């Protein structure tokens, strides 16, 4: 089985950044944009609607089938609404396609999105529907009286997840699923090295054990696993790694309104620390080496950090594997939150898909879209989808349901639906919701996120290539990454349309001169006419 080898698409975001810079122009070119959406008095069920839903899955057929079932169930309730599904396996590709389709006025109706991406979509006029009015609409809002399905009330959606959908104080999405990152640990190898996994994992512990695992025998085999390959610590998402390290240490990342703070001494300090372990061979990344889970399952990695939504690929008994069966090693997998700097104040990122609704000329079509988006919060969809990976439902209504609680209680009953590593990953998040955070969302926040990861990737590559990583290197790295992601060219106006402020003096003078010239031309024209008239008379 092959999970996904489209590494190129992961790099798509950089170009999207360039595309998105043109978005405000493209979205407005030749048109005044769409009218602002206003919630209609009622939903007209006498009409037929056809809407499109762009959905992301983790290259997972079960998730695809859940989307298809959700659509079938929804269409049975609303026979006048047809939902067309378009499948994606990559957020970057959705982002790319949405931006392209904004410029042609062919956006989907409902789309799985990340708030960072929505912030870019918002640079176009009335592109994304603000949902505050719809959230609270008594008839068609969350828990509304006219709905044909059992929708959660707004107080039955985890408040923090609702807050994560707000950009500039306005809600532009519904949360759909939530995850965080987990450290999947080969307990056997940790203990073989003479260590015990602490209750709260720390960075110091992970580095120390990782460095200890690098010892080799005379034949070049690693003592800890007897193999030629051992990368003790592999991180899947280095942008998350940098973001969380900075958050945990109080290092700057960005302000709420988009001022870039990442190029600071704390970032440098973290990069030097990472470089030290890369030099020993004890750390690598997904982009450089491959999926952490593949190395973990082959006994070639001790600490594999990946999303809780990747839990079904982790561990000996995982029901998803990319490596040959004869390469899989039997070991005990322990699931822990990511390492911490302060064990008394753990912090980890909150991530996972949300759903936004795109504006259309016809408010009734938007209503049909909203109804479908809301349907994705019903218990059937929430529970089924969350069970496909280490996701958790975003509603307390689903989380506290008997069905979901029974699912959790059957942890380890089998290696499929109740696979212990997957349920432990979900529990990890349930137990740490209060310790999660998100980064500020603004137009450009997606680029900043990429830049954070690039800093780690570049340092890791440079050390492996035996380049000197010193102060001069760091200054150049900061400068290069700053330029590459155009962080030095963005303004900090945040989301929304830019206020241009007063015109510069030179512009005022030029405009005044132009106006003066037109006045003179007009005066001359009138004077000539009057003169001719006088001549005739």
């Amino acid at each position, binding site marked *: *089985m*092959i*999970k*996904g*080898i*489209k*590494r*190129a698409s992961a*790099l*798509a975001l*950089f*170009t999207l950044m360039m595309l998105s810079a043109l978005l405000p122009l493209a979205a407005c070119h030749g048109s005044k944009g769409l009218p602002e959406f206003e919630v209609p008095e009622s939903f007209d069920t006498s009409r037929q609607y056809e809407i499109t839903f762009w959905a992301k*899955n983790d*290259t*997972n*057929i079960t*998730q*695809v089938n859940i989307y298809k079932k959700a659509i079938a169930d929804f269409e049975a309730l609303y026979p006048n609404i047809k939902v067309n599904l*378009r*499948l994606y*396996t990559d957020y970057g590709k959705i982002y790319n396609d949405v931006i392209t389709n904004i410029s042609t006025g062919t956006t989907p109706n409902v789309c799985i999105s990340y708030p960072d991406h929505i912030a870019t979509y918002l640079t176009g006029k009335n592109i994304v529907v603000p949902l505050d009015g719809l959230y609270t609409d008594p008839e068609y809002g969350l828990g509304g009286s006219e709905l044909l399905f059992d929708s959660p009330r707004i107080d039955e959606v985890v408040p923090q997840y609702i807050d994560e959908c707000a950009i500039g104080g306005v809600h532009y999405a519904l949360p759909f699923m939530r995850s965080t990152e987990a450290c999947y640990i080969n307990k056997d190898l940790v203990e073989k090295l003479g260590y015990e996994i602490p209750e709260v994992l720390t960075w110091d512990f992970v580095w120390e054990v990782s460095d200890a695992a690098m010892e080799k025998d005379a034949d070049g085999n690693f003592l800890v696993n007897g193999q030629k390959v051992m990368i003790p610590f592999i991180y899947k998402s280095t942008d998350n790694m940098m973001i969380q390290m900075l958050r945990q240490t109080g290092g700057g990342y960005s302000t709420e309104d988009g001022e870039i703070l990442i190029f600071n001494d704390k970032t440098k300090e973290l990069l030097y620390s990472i470089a030290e372990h890369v030099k020993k061979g004890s750390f690598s990344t997904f982009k*450089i*080496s*491959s*999926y952490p889970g*593949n190395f973990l399952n082959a006994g070639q990695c001790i600490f594999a950090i990946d999303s809780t939504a990747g839990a079904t690929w982790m561990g000996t008994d995982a029901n998803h594997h*990319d*490596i*040959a069966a004869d390469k899989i090693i039997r070991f005990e997998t322990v699931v822990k939150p990511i390492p911490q700097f302060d064990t008394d104040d753990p912090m980890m990122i909150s991530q996972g898909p949300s759903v936004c609704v795109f504006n259309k000329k016809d408010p009734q079509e938007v209503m049909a879209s909203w109804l479908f988006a809301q349907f994705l919060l019903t218990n059937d969809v929430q529970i089924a989808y969350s069970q496909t990976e280490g996701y958790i439902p975003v509603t307390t209504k689903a989380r506290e349901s008997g069905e979901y609680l029974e699912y959790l209680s059957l942890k380890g009953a089998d290696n499929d639906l109740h696979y212990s590593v997957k349920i432990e990953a979900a529990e990890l998040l349930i137990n740490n919701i209060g310790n999660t955070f998100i980064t500020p969302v603004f137009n450009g926040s997606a680029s900043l996120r990429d830049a954070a990861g690039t800093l780690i990737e570049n340092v890791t*590559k440079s050390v*492996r*290539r*035996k380049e000197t990583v010193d102060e001069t290197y760091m200054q150049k790295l900061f400068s290069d990454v700053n330029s590459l992601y155009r962080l030095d060219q963005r303004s900090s106006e945040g989301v929304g349309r830019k206020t241009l402020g007063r015109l510069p003096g030179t512009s005022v003078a030029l405009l005044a001169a132009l106006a003066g010239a037109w006045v003179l031309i007009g005066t001359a024209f009138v004077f000539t006419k009057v003169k001719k008239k006088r001549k005739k008379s």
Partner: protein
Amino acid sequence: MKKILALVLAAIIALAVFAGCKKTDKQDVKSEGVMTYAEYMAAEIDAEVVIEAYVQAKQSWWDNKATVYTQDKDGAYFLYNMACSEADYAKLVPGTKIKVTGHKAEWAGEIEIADATFEIEDGSYIAPAFDATAVFGTDDLIKHMNEFFTVKGAVVEGMDDGAAFWYSWDNSGEDGSDLYFKVKIGENVFTFTVESYLCDATTEVYGAVKNLKVGDTIDVEGFLYWYEGANPHITKVTVK
């Protein structure tokens, strides 16, 4: 005598030409500072490498980065995300000779050149397909990593649900996604892929695989990509 002398001379010239041609066919003369294929393979992972090779196929271009399948007469080189303008990408037609400077890398078992730059040189070469029919399932297969290959007389096996192919590895994709299909070569079954960046839904091979039936006997061509084992990227399928 003159006639004999002329015949001998002609024979010597013909032999020299033949020998010369033969030499050119089998070996690449590398420019100064350029590694041979053997030197490239002997280089350590992460080391800087300089090679000369000929474009065989292009997988993708994105954000001024190109992913390209190249080969010289001794072996193949996979160039991942090589710096390349869109205009230069258009020049990388099959056969084009390029000099590449980058770093040797290994990703999930695939040996490749990363973070590379290139310059176009004079010369052209299209590698013949290496017949890998007898090599699949042997330890020798890895020696041909990334090469253009052919397999003859493979038999299409059913996927887990009995279908002849799937969209994506678990059938979670749709038209336009990578296609996966299984073939039996000798006694062993292998999974082949139509990589949608290399051959999208408009290509002949994509259509041919969609029309496969379990039990079809086929000849295939493709590039011997590696992902945790052989993961061939198929470019041509002929049903027999």
